[in-house]
């Protein structure tokens, strides 16, 4: 049975007013949520000097000298400074050092700027330089710049502003290693394996750490060139997903993004008010396990170098945003650049087959390519290589675990070929000695060729440019037939930013990850 406890009646005037109030409140909430109620900015007002930077991940705790990936290099460049740095064109410039002198290729003297301070107000002296460089020189501390630092035998500090570094061997590029953003000068209490280095001498300081969301940086008034820093603050907002990062820039949520995904280049190129700043930076290559099996034979490695069509890798893995390379990249501006060094091989499957036959594999063989499912461009590169190798009779199966597993396999030699992506620590060919003399994880497993390593060492220690150039040319020439690795492409590494961001610049080649240095001279202009 139906019982109505109250008779129906039309809404009273009071109830109608209440309804109107509810509707009005709902509309106001809706407008506020959709952002339509916000006041329009005053176009005549000076733009707020806060840069919102969509960063490709959350940086780890900063450790002195450690290789913490691209987000780490950027954070280091913002809150720390070394003796040297790079300007917007990628040229080496003194930073904490006011000047330096190459007494000889094994002795360098640095004069610090006057009145240097860390962000906590403590003075930065030559003693800090000495202690930091000796810390970086200790292999146990695993510094990224160890290849150069390990040759430091002594650091003299005749006064508070002078540091004289003595090396056990000549190193013409030593100063360039000091411009790596991980080679920053740190206070003494940060010089231990478990210390976190948040106090620095860079243009910005960490003001707020919203873990998992953002780091808020404020201008460091103790920075030696604080007057030239225009930005008041930088919000480093973490966007691990490339599409989300791109969307954030297009929708105006951030002003600048790093590590633009290759598939998004065309979207951003056609977006009004956005600049995409690309430099061909890191290289993708094939590395081998040379301890046994077919790849122990240099002829087979050479066959692979001739078999892969680099243009396919450029198109398939990088959507056309990369440069095909046939030798270890050396910038044309380098004293050591030669055309021959960039043309060690070419795409020639017929020659590759001949080399295979000469090595005793006329019908090819079966093998595996270690890559990773975690980075799509690694996997796409591997797929292209797989297809090209099939053309010369090498039947390669892909092994594509996540990155951590791939690292373990690379470290233990549990692979036959692998795809890798890396960049040199410096632009000059000295990076080849660091790379080929470095840990097995990051190069061909078990590879060592005394002749090539001796030539590279001669390049580093040569007394003059001519002798160094001759040695590097010899080393690279030997690589043509020994093939310690097969360079494939230099991938386009891009930052993208609103047109209101001025003064920021991507750096050329391997230096792309140090573009963070240019944020010290970046500003926001009126839109």
């Amino acid at each position, binding site marked *: 049975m139906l019982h109505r406890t109250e008779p129906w009646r039309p809404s009273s005037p009071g109830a109608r007013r209440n309804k109107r109030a509810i509707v009005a409140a709902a509309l106001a909430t809706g407008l506020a*949520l959709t*952002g339509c109620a916000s006041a329009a900015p005053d176009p005549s007002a000076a733009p707020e000097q806060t840069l919102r930077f969509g960063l490709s991940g959350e940086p780890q*705790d900063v450790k002195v000298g450690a290789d913490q990936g691209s987000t780490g290099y950027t954070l280091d460049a913002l809150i720390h400074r070394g003796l040297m740095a790079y300007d917007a064109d990628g040229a080496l410039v003194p930073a904490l050092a006011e000047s330096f002198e190459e007494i000889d290729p094994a002795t360098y003297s640095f004069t610090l700027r006057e009145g240097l301070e860390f962000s906590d107000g403590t003075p930065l002296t030559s003693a800090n330089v000495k202690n930091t460089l000796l810390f970086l020189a200790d292999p146990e501390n*695993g510094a990224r710049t160890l290849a150069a630092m390990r040759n430091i035998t002594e650091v003299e500090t005749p006064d508070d502003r002078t540091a004289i570094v003595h090396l056990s061997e000549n190193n013409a590029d030593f100063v360039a290693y000091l411009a790596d953003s991980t080679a920053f000068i740190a206070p003494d209490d940060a010089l231990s394996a478990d210390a*976190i280095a948040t106090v620095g001498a860079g243009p910005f300081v960490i003001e707020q750490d919203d873990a998992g969301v953002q780091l808020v940086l404020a201008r460091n008034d103790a920075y030696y060139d604080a007057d030239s820093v225009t930005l008041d603050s930088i919000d480093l907002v973490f966007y691990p997903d490339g599409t*989300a990062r791109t969307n954030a820039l297009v*929708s105006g*949520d951030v002003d600048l993004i790093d590590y633009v995904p290759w598939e998004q280049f065309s979207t951003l190129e056609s977006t009004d008010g956005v600049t995409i700043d690309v430099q061909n930076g890191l290289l993708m290559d094939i590395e081998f396990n040379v301890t046994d099996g077919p790849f122990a034979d240099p002829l087979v490695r050479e066959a692979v170098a001739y078999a892969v069509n680099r243009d396919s890798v450029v198109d398939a893995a990088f959507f056309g945003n990369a440069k095909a390379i046939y030798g270890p990249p050396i910038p044309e501006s380098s004293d050591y650049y030669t055309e021959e060094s960039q043309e060690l091989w070419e795409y020639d499957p017929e020659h590759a087959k001949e080399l295979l036959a000469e090595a005793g594999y006329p019908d090819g063989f079966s093998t595996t390519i270690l890559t990773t499912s975690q980075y799509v461009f690694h996997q796409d590169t591997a797929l292209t290589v797989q297809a090209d190798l099939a053309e010369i009779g090498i039947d390669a199966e892909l092994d594509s675990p996540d990155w*951590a597993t791939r*690292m373990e396999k690379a470290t233990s030699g549990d692979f036959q070929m692998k795809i890798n992506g890396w960049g040199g620590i410096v632009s000059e060919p000295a990076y080849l000695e660091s790379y080929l003399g470095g840990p097995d994880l990051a190069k061909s497993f078990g590879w060592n060729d005394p002749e090539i390593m001796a030539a590279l060492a001669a390049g580093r220690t040569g007394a003059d440019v001519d002798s160094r150039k001759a040695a590097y040319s010899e080393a690279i020439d030997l690589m043509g037939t020994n093939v310690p690795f097969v360079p494939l492409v230099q991938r386009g590494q891009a930052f993208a930013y609103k047109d209101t961001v001025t003064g920021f610049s991507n750096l050329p080649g391997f230096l792309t990850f140090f573009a963070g240095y240019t944020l010290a001279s970046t500003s926001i202009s009126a839109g």
Partner: protein
Amino acid sequence: MISFIAKRIGVGLGLVFVVLTLIFLAIHAVPGDPAAVLASGGASGTATPESIERLREQLGLDKPLAVQYLDYLAGVVTGDLGSSFRDSRPVVTTILERLPNTIELVVLACVVGAVVGVVLGAAAGRFGGWVDSLVTAFSSLAISVPVYVLGTVFILIFSLTLGWFPAGGFVSWQTDPVGHLRLLLLPALTLSIAFIGVTARMTRSSVVETSRMDWVRTARSWGLTPSRVFSRHVLRNSMTPVATAIGLEVGIMLGSTVLAERVFNYPGLSALLVDSVVNRDYPVVQGIVIVISVLFIAINIAVDLVYRFLDPRVR
């Protein structure tokens, strides 16, 4: 009643112990050295074997597995879930920061999903015909469209085209309540769509089934209006399986919001879990799995209690 709850909690604690043991063994069995990943910043790395070995010692990874397990158990019992390998912050702190974000997202998605889903499902079951067809078609579509596709479409429409909402991100409630809600709405709506589909479908079939019961016919024969029969005798009795489904969905959603969190750059627990697995950050992985298991078990206990309210026969 109290003994029932105590018994369920006892069983739940046993389950948590099994889960934490399994996750400890599983994460340690997966290849990948946390120290090597950490020392290379996720790239190829230039770290020396000496520095990786020292890092391993620092993280306690050089100890025998049994010792690591006992240390871990001792920590869990005292409420100490260890510290993250990546940023050395206590895992409990990290989880307490992220958990409310995920709970907020899941609760809003579930409230929208449950309310809209029950209404749609009830309407489909009650009216049949084209309403039923429409709701069934919508449910199928809602369940089958992947979250990342839906999220991307929402961003395209509401952020990039209309500019009504930010494309993603997070701001705390304390800093900017309106901004907080604006950032919460799209991911919650994205997650709720599939939830609406599941709930509507479950409600519809349950309503249809219950409508055929004898007591419903009896109620009609008493002369009750169709709407009263439906609301009092059909809908309420249809809710038991729906409550089960909602409970399970909420539990599952707590650990699987990762795609929505990724698309909308929302700092929730699921994205942290996935990142931590990728980085082999053992303490964080273990901590999150424990918390999600405890919540899942708690929700199931709550659902059992709801049964007892909805269906007197269970008491």
